[in-house]
């Protein structure tokens, strides 16, 4: 691990009318670390993710990203061209609904290849080989490389989205309820896949989820949010096994054998 956080948020806030959706949140994410943000619907966790990823602008606070050269970049001050370049190279975003993260009319291979092409790849054969490799890696038969994701099941689509996101080996990936809309049996397979890929590639991840079991499986560290604020944070198993805040105790006690 290098010597500083890859992403640092300080006092990040945003209000929608009278609702303080995110209220003074600070957090650090270290290279290779998986940080889960848990909380119930409306706790502000997805909004926080969008603020951290630069997809929405906070009313107050800063988000700093440290690039591979060690330079610190202000996510909301860098301008859209720079942020978009980051978003398609060093960062990735996995949406809850794969339809938001995929091009449904473009073949699986084209979906995986897009980020490669966007970052300059111009050799069709190489792009295709790499796409096929990633399909296999997310357990989609390479023979389906020319099929459009329209024809895929929900679980396959989500795995395709993950391949499409990870193909450029991003350093930082934002995940918004990646197992959200899936059957339980499909969820387990996906979670395990994410766990293995993230560990193998050493990716730093901010994972927003309301699934405590997913957080326990994937995350090194946990942030518990409620009403836009962080009420508790720490080592994942300590927060879940030794919760201090009343809300965390409620959250943990409402889950069966997390």
């Amino acid at each position: 691990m290098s010597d500083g956080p890859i992403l640092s948020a300080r006092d990040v806030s945003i209000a929608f009318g009278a609702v303080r959706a995110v209220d003074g949140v600070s957090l650090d994410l270290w290279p290779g670390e998986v940080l889960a943000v848990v909380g119930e619907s409306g706790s502000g966790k997805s909004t926080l993710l969008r603020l951290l990823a630069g997809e929405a602008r906070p009313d107050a606070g800063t988000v700093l990203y440290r690039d591979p050269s060690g330079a610190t970049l202000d996510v909301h001050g860098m301008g859209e061209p720079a942020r978009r370049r980051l978003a398609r190279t060093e960062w990735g975003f996995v949406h809850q609904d794969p339809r938001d993260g995929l091009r449904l009319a473009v073949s699986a291979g084209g979906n995986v290849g897009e980020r490669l092409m966007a970052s300059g790849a111009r050799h069709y054969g190489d792009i295709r080989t790499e796409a096929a490799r990633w399909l296999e890696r997310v357990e989609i038969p390479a023979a389906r490389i020319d099929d459009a994701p329209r024809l895929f099941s929900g679980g396959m689509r989500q795995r395709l989205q993950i391949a499409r996101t990870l193909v450029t080996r991003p350093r930082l990936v934002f995940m918004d309820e990646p197992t959200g809309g899936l059957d339980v049996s499909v969820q387990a397979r996906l979670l395990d896949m994410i766990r293995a890929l993230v560990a193998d590639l050493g990716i730093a991840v901010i994972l927003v989820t309301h699934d405590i079991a997913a957080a326990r499986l994937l995350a090194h560290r946990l942030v518990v949010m409620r009403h836009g604020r962080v009420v508790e944070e720490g080592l994942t198993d300590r927060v879940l096994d030794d919760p201090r805040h009343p809300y965390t105790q409620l959250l943990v006690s409402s889950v069966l054998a997390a």
Partner: protein
Amino acid sequence: MSGYNFAYLDEATKRMIRRALLKAVAVPGHQVPFGSREMPLPYGWGTGGIQVTASVIGADDTLKVIDQGADDTTNAVSIRRFFARVAPGLRTTERTAEATVIQTRHRIPETPLREGQVLVYQVPQPEPLFRLEPRRAETRRLHALADYGLMQVKLYEDIARHGRVGSSYDHPVMVNGRYLMSPSPIPSFDNPKMHRSAALQLFGAGRERRLYAVPPYTEVRSLDFEDHPFVPLRANGRCSLCGAGDSYLDEVVTDDRGGRIFVCSDTDFCTQRQTMREAAE
């Protein structure tokens, strides 16, 4: 048509269009909005090209108009007749070499253009990302950020489906290494003629209200892959009239028993060759 200003458009409109054209020349390949006027022809008949031509043409110019390479098709004839009526003193020609302004639909003449000539393209859809990204605001953003991965995805899909970089016409180009541009529906055979052309190339889309330009000697590269390079396509054959083996050919059905011949799509080019051949005989 007396009572009209020279070349139909009033001087204020021409000035507005010329300003837009100057901007387009200054930023090669970039689409510049302009206030497209009602013209006495319907959209789809080259109203964008006509407005551009009207704005740049003078009484000492010589105008050539082609449609699919031919000077004698309805569209070309009516536009040429229109300018002859509304631009007193303007000479018209069918000879590429004699023209100072050439308005075209879907072709670039075979005869190489020279400095001082202006080629005006009629453009139905100026946005090369149109089929891939329907949101105009988003395509503008993609151009601003030179974020053209999406276009490459389309070419990838063409190869995956058809085995080759697909479009036989309107094949997208990168202009000056910066802007992705639609060359208008010219055959991909003509794309290489745009590259470092000595002529000024102007593009007008009337319905879409956009202008763009490629100044002389500008780099125009057709999009492709390293291992699937862009190949300009033409029918494999010779012109039955002039014998040319290197021009773009139209297929002509000669009878109802499947008989067909190829002839040059560029009628002026073909005529010149036939004249030369007769003179030689």
